[in-house]
């Protein structure tokens, strides 16, 4: 099939084009080209008059294809597609040729050459449109259901926003309790609220939205299949062994004979096998850690059938139109010996120090020793010159100063800050100012000469070549060294189930940091919170609410439309070799049996239209719609045709 009545419209762009390219010559050179019905030039094709002219021509001359030669398609491709649609022509029977940037501007000093290039480009456009096919956008139904993985502050925030719109949310948390990392913090900047209090507030809202939010704790995603609008997810809910309310849990916990290191307090304290991580944790039922439990039955003696030590894991199938990852981050774990970590007793990480602050009363004590002077080493595990963590973790400067202020106010601790650069960006500059006022001492080191930690008697000695003191080597005797560790990407398997792309630094990657900040390259998969990049809670909840807004644009409308530029398989030509299946990085092609023969099938909803499979197929059985082999060949031939003087 050939589109044989093509209208060609060459734009002056008010001189931007016509000052260099001879637009009249272009019109002349293409008006007798095969399949061209009409060719015109005009001062501003995008103006109302220009658009009207094209619309009228389509209707009056019965055009079945349009080429506009003007600016960049980024600017006006959509404009002209809409003109076609208004005139009743399929909007994909259109080609936008850029003779401004590609001819006029690129070859300002060679008007003749520019004109020849413009002619060749326009002809190639005509050839392409002549072989174009009418295409339809792909419509996908979107029932209002969503899966959110991770119930940290970001996951909960996103869940609440969506539930309030009446959307059904499945919120899956791998741990027995919700809240994520911020619950482990002490007074969180900017408000100074204790982390657990922040979570408490969200939990109160969560309780009100029970009808729309299904919360699964102690749960993991086992498999995900399907695509945007139609994800099928299987989760496993691991046993909590505490199955219903009982008012004697405290007694049961007391009776439990097993004690293990408490991971919530980074191993600085111990907990029982049946436990709450902290007093107000949610859900309210305690959990039993079966790795520690010896099934002695002491707790059962107290709580009876509220505890079931033989509870079995449960599997459940969930349907979701969209999936949001809110899987968070891990604090960087320093290597043994890195700034004396695990080498000297009183070298701890910032997360540990915050737990210490939360757990201490009256005076700050660690391992039986009072802590009066503390040195903080900044950028540990961030901004590495070599190594994976080249980025700045953003939260640590402010969190460190915030913790130092709290330590000073609550326990009179004197603080030394051994830093590379202070990045208390934005409003948080006031924390830095306040710390300076309160007598915190700042010393700046160069990454070429990092500080050294040694021990002398019962003191740790931090040796630093201080750039603020003109490179003087300075010794600071302290009782504790705190390493301000960065955020590192959390490795979780669910991510690979969907092939969500990572950025260079290992965090989940958005499509475009400015224009599409919460979507991933996988259709229908969104990212919220610190799984995307180092974020503090302010940024984590902002992005969480953004994912909710994004998801609701699909879920409230009930369907979505995708660009038609995806691939199609010619079953006649396909030999079933499977090369394309391997080539596709989105898993969008699969082989199916058709009457005993293997044939490739495209999963339209997830195909991104990259064309990689079309390139690899030895049989040319795959074509990218809108860019078919036929079209491209015709384009090349037309471009190479001689241009007469």
């Amino acid at each position: 099939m050939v589109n044989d009545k093509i209208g060609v419209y060459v734009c002056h762009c008010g001189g931007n084009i016509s000052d260099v390219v001879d637009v009249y010559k272009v019109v002349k050179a293409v008006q007798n080209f095969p399949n061209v019905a009409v060719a015109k030039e005009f001062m501003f094709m995008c103006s109302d008059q220009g658009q009207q002219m094209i619309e009228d021509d389509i209707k009056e001359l019965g055009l079945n294809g349009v080429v506009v030669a003007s600016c960049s398609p980024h600017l006006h491709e959509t404009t002209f597609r809409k003109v076609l649609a208004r005139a009743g022509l399929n909007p994909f029977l259109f080609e936008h040729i850029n003779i401004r940037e590609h001819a006029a501007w690129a070859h300002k000093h060679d008007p003749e050459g520019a004109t020849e290039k413009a002619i060749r480009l326009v002809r190639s456009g005509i050839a392409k449109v002549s072989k174009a096919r009418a295409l339809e956008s792909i419509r996908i139904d979107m029932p209002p259901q969503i899966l959110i993985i991770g119930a940290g502050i970001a996951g909960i925030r996103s869940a609440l926003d969506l539930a309030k719109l009446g959307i059904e949310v499945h919120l899956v948390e791998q741990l027995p309790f919700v809240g994520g990392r911020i619950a482990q913090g002490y007074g969180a900047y900017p408000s100074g609220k204790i982390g657990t209090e922040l979570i408490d507030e969200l939990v109160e809202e969560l309780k009100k939205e029970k009808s729309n939010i299904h919360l699964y704790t102690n749960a993991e995603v086992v498999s995900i299949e399907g695509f945007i609008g139609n994800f099928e997810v299987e989760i496993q809910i691991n046993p909590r062994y505490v199955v219903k309310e009982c008012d004697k849990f405290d007694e049961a916990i007391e009776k439990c004979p097993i004690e293990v290191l408490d991971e919530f307090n980074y191993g600085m304290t111990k907990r029982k096998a049946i436990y709450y991580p902290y007093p107000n944790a949610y859900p309210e039922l305690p959990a039993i850690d079966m790795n520690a439990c010896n099934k002695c039955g002491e707790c059962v003696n107290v709580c009876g059938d509220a505890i079931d030590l033989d509870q079995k894991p449960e599997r459940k199938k969930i349907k979701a139109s969209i999936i949001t990852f809110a899987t968070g981050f891990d604090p960087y774990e320093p290597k043994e010996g890195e700034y004396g970590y695990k080498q000297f007793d009183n070298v701890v990480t910032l997360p540990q120090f915050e737990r210490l602050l939360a757990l201490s009363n009256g005076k700050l004590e660690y391992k039986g020793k009072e802590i009066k002077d503390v040195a903080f080493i900044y950028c540990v595990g961030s901004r590495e010159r070599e190594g994976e963590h080249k980025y700045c973790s953003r939260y640590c400067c402010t969190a460190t100063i915030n913790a130092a202020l709290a330590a000073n106010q609550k326990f009179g601790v004197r603080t030394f800050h051994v830093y590379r650069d202070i990045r208390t960006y934005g409003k948080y500059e006031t924390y830095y100012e306040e710390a300076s006022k309160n007598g915190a001492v700042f010393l700046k080191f160069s990454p070429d000469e990092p500080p050294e930690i040694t021990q002398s008697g019962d003191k740790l000695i931090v040796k630093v070549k201080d750039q603020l003191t003109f490179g003087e080597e300075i010794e600071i005797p302290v009782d504790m060294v705190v390493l301000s560790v960065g955020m590192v990407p959390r490795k979780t398997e669910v991510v690979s189930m969907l092939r969500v792309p990572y950025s260079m630094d290992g965090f989940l990657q958005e499509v475009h940091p400015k224009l599409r900040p919460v979507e991933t390259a996988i259709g229908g998969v969104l990212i919220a919170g610190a799984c995307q990049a180092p974020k503090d809670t302010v940024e984590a909840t902002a992005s969480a609410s953004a994912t909710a807004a994004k998801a609701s644009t699909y879920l409230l409308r009930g369907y979505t439309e995708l660009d038609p530029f995806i691939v199609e398989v010619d079953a006649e030509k396909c030999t079933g070799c499977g090369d394309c299946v391997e080539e596709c990085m989105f898993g969008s092609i699969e082989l199916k049996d058709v009457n005993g023969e293997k044939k490739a099938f495209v999963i339209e909803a997830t195909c991104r239209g990259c064309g990689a499979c079309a390139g690899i197929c030895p049989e040319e059985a795959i074509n990218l719609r809108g860019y078919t082999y036929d079209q491209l060949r015709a384009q090349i031939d037309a471009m190479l045709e001689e241009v007469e003087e």
Partner: protein
Amino acid sequence: MVKVNLELVEIFKEEFGAETVTECFNCGNCTAICPVSTVDHLFPRRLIRYVQLGLEEKLLEAPETWWCLTCRQCTVTCPRQAYPTELMVAIRKDAIESGRAPPHIRDFLTNIQKQKNPWGVGKFKRDQWVKKANVEVPTVKTNQEFEWLWFVDCAHSFDNRNVPVSNMIAEILNHIGINYAILGREEGCCGNDVRRAGEEGLFQLLKEENEKTFGKYGVEKILVASPHCYNTFKNEYDGYEVKLVLEVILDAIKSGKLELKKPIEKKVVYHDSCFLGRYNDIYELPREVLRAIPGIELVEMPRSYQQALCCGGGGGLVVSEYPGEIRVNNERAKEAAETGADILAVACPFCMIMLEDGVKAEKVDDKIEVKDIIELVWESAFG
């Protein structure tokens, strides 16, 4: 290798008035603006840093402690209100306390302690200028009903270049009809620069003595010509109404009590005194008086108002050989001469001494002449 010592920092904060030292975030603006800082010395930031970490041995080694002019250019420039000038004073307090004042400062302080003036001239000679004066100068004894105590100050009592100005002040005050008196031999030193040299104890002593004398004669209002006295009486003594002679003059001009008749057809450039400008925000008063004199064309130096360069006479340096590398009085004299002005007008007796030296050292004394604004007023009114 040096060890951080926060105990010393506490002492600096509590004993020497360096409360603001921890405000400093080491930006270096003070060093950039300081007129006596040099590339090798990064003054005053380096010293501030030593205080922040309590590095006493480093402070002991540093020669720059005695460079500071207490001009306050750094203090008005500091983005963190760390008051670097005041921190320099704190460092001097520490040095003086531990007996480390250099000879020139020791002399300055001894002179004031013994003779109540920086030059060490016998204190009984303080009222000699009055005896030689050709005008009536009432004293607290001869005019017991005085309203204003004119505190003449050391420079206007002892320094040859400034004494004629005292005569003119007396004549002007008499003409306007101010009810005033001077203390004569009982006048002491105000202590402003003693304090800036870091000798807090002596300052407190002088202050006590002065307040005792003031009390004896029922002094409530003090009239001064020197910005140094003005600063300390106004801001560091309690309960006195303090006025500048220039204020009295301007009021009289405005009310018609003082008529400026004779035009002075000269180009005049005014040099801001640190203790008027940066210490007390008085920039327009001297200029207004100059503008009121017929004939004068007032011009400005590139560095004026808050950015004005210091004359170099603060903190005891008016009587000492300057220990640093840069002579600001010479630089200022050059800057003034480059404006093409005939007269460099000053409003401070120390600026007068320092800039006259500067004009001579730069050999521009044939182009520009240093004069007190009061001299110009007198010439126009009575000359």
